[in-house]
């Protein structure tokens, strides 16, 4: 998704000279084309994320759309107070771009794992949160939102080769996208793990268990009304996210179900804790936390 994001921003920069790009010294093989084309609109601020966000706040107050870029933990957590007091409080169009959904940075270890970025942003009412599921949805989502008022958090995946079959880049702010339809259960998912959910739904369908898959890329504003309408039609909802089960999509769905008095069960599949003393690649972690198509099929069979 990183390269898709970079391509999209390059295209937007050509038609909107208010776009600036700031990075805290990350983006090798991502930003070269932008730097070459717009050297005066690119700033590597060094390894200094707090300064990056506050600089962007100052730039945005003068009318620019500064995009700030780093790995999700460094982009969202290190300068969190600066995001809160800067663009959120001042309602300025700073864009915080965090890369690495869940364990995508695998062997790099927990400092690089994006486990709670959506959660910490969701508690701030004044920031739009976009977490696309694949490269094509990145393009649509960024084109649709880049010049919205107020700040935006974009949660990007590392992998550019993921394509969610049937999603076709669909994105509408505050809406969910329907990916599969079936009446046995409802899956609600966000981010690149969507591709695993789609596979799980297809495997189940082949075994006579058709399910519905909703993809949520717009977390704030979220598709609350739509989620409620769907949840009412199913006895079982399973949320799937490469994120802590607290604070992210699972929490959003649970809030909607509880607040609307809907009688379905909600099972939140995601990351339960930050591991120490073990390391591995993304597949290793995803297997541990049951974020693969096979474990999702097992979960559905067990719970239905």
């Amino acid at each position, binding site marked *: 998704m990183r390269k898709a994001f970079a391509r999209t921003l390059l295209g937007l920069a050509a038609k909107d000279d208010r776009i600036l790009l700031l990075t805290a010294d990350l983006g090798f093989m991502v930003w070269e084309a932008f730097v070459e084309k717009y050297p005066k609109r690119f700033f590597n601020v060094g390894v200094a994320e707090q300064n990056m966000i506050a*600089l*962007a706040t*100052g730039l945005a107050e003068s009318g620019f759309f500064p995009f700030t870029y780093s790995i999700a933990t460094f982009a969202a957590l290190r300068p969190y107070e*600066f995001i809160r007091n800067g663009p959120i409080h001042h309602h300025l169009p700073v864009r915080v771009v965090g890369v690495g959904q869940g364990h995508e940075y695998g062997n790099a270890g927990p400092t690089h794992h994006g486990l709670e970025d959506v959660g910490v942003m969701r508690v701030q009412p004044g920031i739009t949160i976009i977490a696309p599921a694949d490269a094509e949805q990145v393009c649509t989502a960024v084109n649709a939102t880049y010049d919205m008022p107020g700040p935006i958090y974009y949660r990007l995946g590392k992998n550019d080769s993921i394509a969610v079959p049937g999603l076709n880049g669909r994105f509408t702010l505050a809406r969910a996208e329907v990916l599969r339809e079936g009446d046995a259960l409802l899956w609600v998912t966000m981010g690149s793990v969507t591709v695993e959910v789609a596979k799980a739904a297809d495997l189940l369908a082949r075994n006579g268990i058709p399910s519905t898959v909703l993809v949520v890329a717009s977390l704030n504003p979220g598709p609350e009304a739509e989620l409620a309408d769907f949840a009412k039609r199913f006895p079982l909802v399973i949320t799937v996210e490469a994120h802590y089960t607290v604070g992210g999509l699972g929490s959003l769905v649970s809030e909607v179900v509880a607040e609307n008095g809907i009688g379905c069960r909600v099972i939140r599949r995601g990351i339960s804790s930050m591991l120490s003393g073990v390391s591995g690649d993304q597949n290793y972690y995803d297997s541990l936390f049951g974020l693969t198509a096979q474990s999702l099929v097992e979960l559905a069979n067990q719970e239905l």
Partner: protein
Amino acid sequence: MKQTTILPGQLRRHILDQSKRANVGHIGSALSIVEIISVLYSRILRIPNPKDLTRDRFILSKGHAALTQYSAFYLMGWLSQETLNTYCGNGTLLGVHPDNALEGVDFSTGSLGHGLAYGAGSALAARLENSPRNVYVLISDAECNEGSLWETVMFAAHHQLSNLIAIVDENKQQALGRTKDILSLHPLADRWRAFGWDTVEADGHDTVELTRIITAFDKSSGPPHVLIAHTTFGKGVSFMEGRLEWHYLPMSDDQHRQALEDLGEGP
């Protein structure tokens, strides 16, 4: 552009009266920056009106001294006496720390270590737009404890943001004691200098000297500028000068009377 002259004595009078009326503290920090605020609004800042996009920007990064800025707004004619009298009331725009919802406040502050970076972003924006506007940021000496401040110090020097002017209110006092006892900043000027800033020291209560130095900064090329303004916490009120408790305490009636007498003004 017509310049209004704001006298330090006028600012002190409003600071004392409003602190007393609202029964709040932070008086010592407000008094130490009086001459700096007086010089900035009377002689330096080019603000045709607070909504003008081409105006110079000013960020009170040590937001806990906002009362000095509100008093200046009143004397500039941007704020009515009625509004000034809402300071620290319920539903007011005039809280202890400045909020940019109030016309004249360019950025909200209160949490230390933010303002210089807002200013650097604003100065960079001016450069990108080929605008001659300058950006002034008033920070506290204890704010130099914040690591984020030094991130910005490096950035501004690297990019030679000559239109960025920092003023350090070196009043030697912080929340729980003297800066030299809590986290030594010595040698403060040399530290800024070593980071590549054009660094000048001055008596922060000498309005002529402050005006001369800030006016003389080359704001069109070269490094960013910092003026280390040596000030006295609680300046002008005998029983507040250099006394930590005036970071917190409101005044009694007798103390308010005594403070006004120190200013040479009756109640």
